């Protein structure tokens, strides 16, 4: 290309020479540290408290905030309820197995539904039709599902998530926030009692207030209005 022979070589050597005197990019790592890129958020890690239990309360707030929906979780929630959810992208082991199954032509089990009691999701679909598949009516949908099944089956929540397009984390957050929605069948009375002990209902507050006004005897106001003993 060049009319003068050797100019390319000179140009190349000029680059080499410039690099030679430029400051080096190698960082002596433990002593010198570079600033991470501004979007770097570090590795996801769950922290433990001093008793060795997970600090994570399974509140799903991180899952809701995650812009690429890569966070998901499962396990016990703060009210002691066993409640598991598999996040699709994270379970690589299951993924590989699944693709192996698919290649061999066998049916692929859906891991999301396996650990839960089989529920007939037809009623969920009917309820969603009634609410126009609109996530804005989520509270009404959840209340209707609970009225239909007696509780909120996880498979139903997944179904709602699939059909309305609302994130599972959002639905779970809504369902776990309101005290009247529950994840267990209503027969589990001891669990309901545990929930009530953890979050005293308003009636309990009222009777405790009366008891406190009447001198903490626990007798309530009717006992207090009588003659002072």
């Amino acid at each position, binding site marked *: 290309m060049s009319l003068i022979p050797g100019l390319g070589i000179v140009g190349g050597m000029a680059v080499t020479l410039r690099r030679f005197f430029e400051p080096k990019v190698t960082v002596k790592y433990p002593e010198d540290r570079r600033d991470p890129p501004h979007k770097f958020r570090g590795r996801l890690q769950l922290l433990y408290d001093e008793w060795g239990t997970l600090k994570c309360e399974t509140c799903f707030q991180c899952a809701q905030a995650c812009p690429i929906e890569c966070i998901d979780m499962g396990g016990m929630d703060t009210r002691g309820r066993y409640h598991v959810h598999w996040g699709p992208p994270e379970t690589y082991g299951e993924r590989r197995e699944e693709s192996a199954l698919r290649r061999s032509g066998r049916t692929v089990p859906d891991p999301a539904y396996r650990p839960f009691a089989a529920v007939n999701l037809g009623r969920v679909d009917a309820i969603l039709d009634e609410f126009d598949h609109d996530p*804005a009516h989520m*509270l*009404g949908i959840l209340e209707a599902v609970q009225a239909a099944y007696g509780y909120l089956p996880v498979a139903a929540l997944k179904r709602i998530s699939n059909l309305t397009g609302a994130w599972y984390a959002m639905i779970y957050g809504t369902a776990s*926030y*309101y005290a009247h929605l529950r994840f267990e069948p209503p027969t589990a009375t001891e669990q309901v009692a545990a929930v009530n002990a953890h979050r005293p209902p308003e009636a309990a507050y009222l009777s405790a207030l009366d008891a406190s006004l009447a001198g903490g005897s626990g007798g309530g106001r009717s006992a207090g209005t009588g*003659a*002072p003993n």
Partner: protein
Amino acid sequence: MVELLATPPAWPTILLERAGAKDPTDLDAAVRTGAFEGLRRSIRDLGPTGTIATIAASGLRGRGGGGYPAAEKWRTAAQAEAPRRYVVANGYGADPAAATDRYLLEHDPFSVVEGAAIAAFAIGASDAIIAVRTEATESIRRLEAAIGAAEEAGFLGFDVLGSGHDLVMSVRPVQGAYMLGEETVLLKALEGKRGQPEQRPPYPAERGLYDMPTVVNNVQTLASVPWIVRNGADAFAAIGARTNGTILVQVRTPAGDGIAEVALGTPLREIVALGGKLPKGRSIKAVLIGGPSGGLLPPDLLDTGYDFESLRAVGAHVGSGSVVVADDRACVVDLARLLTRFCASEACGKTIPCRIGTRRLVEIADRVIDGRPRPTDMTLLTDLSADIVASALCDHERLTTLPLASGMRYFRPELDDHLLRSSCPAGVCHPIAVAAGAAS
């Protein structure tokens, strides 16, 4: 069902004007006593800006506890550029010890419906939602009957009173959390999301329900609106001291409880007296004002006026409108712990100062009551309260510190008895668990 307390006949009645009606859902009877006269006047004579100006001149402030001027919200919402606007009437009434909102909705649903209709007309909203507790089945039934009757008579629905303004009003039952009384939380619940407050600004008046300008007013605020439009802003401004108008309170004393309508600025002593005489030989020890997150005031502050500023100045707040009188059988520390524990367990858990800080407050109170306080506990309580207030996201969080903070401020001798002498003057708590053998 709570009953109405007898108030002196000279006291003004605005909210409970029609409360004595035989059938609260009878539209004809209500119209004969002036219902929807305000809406008609607002549409025919005043127009949207005139209505807002009237409300501004009357000095109407939010009855939900915050005391924000209603006209400011309306003006902001009316000026915001948006395809839709909403009016939300907050009738949730979160405080278990106060049924004032529910009482109003049951006994005069038309005043709330009319107030919401005027608000919707003033800001140009085509949807109005009245949020009620699901447990309050009677209020829901009467509200729906009232809305149906008003729609048939042309006060709601398509082309309200020939103004060209459409208005769809609906009742939305919500339940399941104490926090739903907070305005942004209520909006979240109406959107079907988990009930956690939002950072403000933007206020709901700029971006609220479905990101549209939304006026969220307490039902008592809205029920005052028709009266103002009907009788004029000056008549309203003449009622009450420091803050105009009246408010419903629920007085709860050891002798009984009931609801009364009082003018704002009424001295606490007169409100407490409505609850009846205390049992013989008992005297007032503390007055809890403002619901579970209210302040505990000593009897020598009973001359304080019941209005937003005066109560804030002494460390209480209007809140839910509940006034709870504790006589000398109650232990202030025990009472403060109960209130803080309720607030802490009902907290939504969005912000860390609230989720963790309020639990630490409860633990401090537990330690004091169980008789094993740490020497640093009082300093910690002061610092922690200040930190929670400084970093709070919503008012629930800010006010949760009030029972313990006001208890420490006014009842320090009683607290010192617990702390230093391991004894409870009221004999309620047993702070001598450890030193039982040593102390008597």
